[in-house]
């Protein structure tokens, strides 16, 4: 994968994200992530 660590990405104004049922965007995915991450052991995530 030829990826520069820093490359330019165009920024544009955009509408706020919303869902059909007016729930916060990605709320279920975020809740699931939080459930898994709540029990995570943080020391392993610390940089060496």
């Amino acid at each position, binding site marked *: 994968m030829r*990826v520069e660590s820093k490359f330019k*990405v165009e920024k544009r*104004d955009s509408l706020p994200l919303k869902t059909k049922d007016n729930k916060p965007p*990605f709320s279920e*995915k975020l809740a*699931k992530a939080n459930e898994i991450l709540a029990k995570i*052991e943080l020391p392993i995530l610390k940089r060496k």
Partner: protein
Amino acid sequence: MNYPNYLFHSNLSSTEFFFESIGSKGIINKVVAFQQTSVATIYNLGLADYDPTTGEIDDTIITDNGDMEKILATIFHIVLYYLSINPNHIVYFSGNSPSRTRLYRIAINHSLNELTVLVDVLGVINSQPEPFTANRAYDGFLIRKK
């Protein structure tokens, strides 16, 4: 990863990234969003179809536009860019289903040598992160800048 990727742009705060999936079902707008989780440094990656005229997203739909490899390559590029501007963040992502998470695992495995030049890739299983290993049924993945 040797697959080509789609061009993408971001919102003004560089927390949402937009691209067009072009495939058998036409042009489908996609958004990748990073949201802070309950762990301060970890940000969840969400992927959804997106209507640019309303801002409405749908992260439950399975589009099947025939360009999954190109979409995954684009997501990896977005993650690498996001980490380049937020080097202290850690990105968490998983699929909406075990089969989709398995697909992500296969895609990571295909690109692992190239990814690990720039980032650490961890698999999360039973809420415990470990260095990514092929063929482990992970619940999700963590990616952080080296």
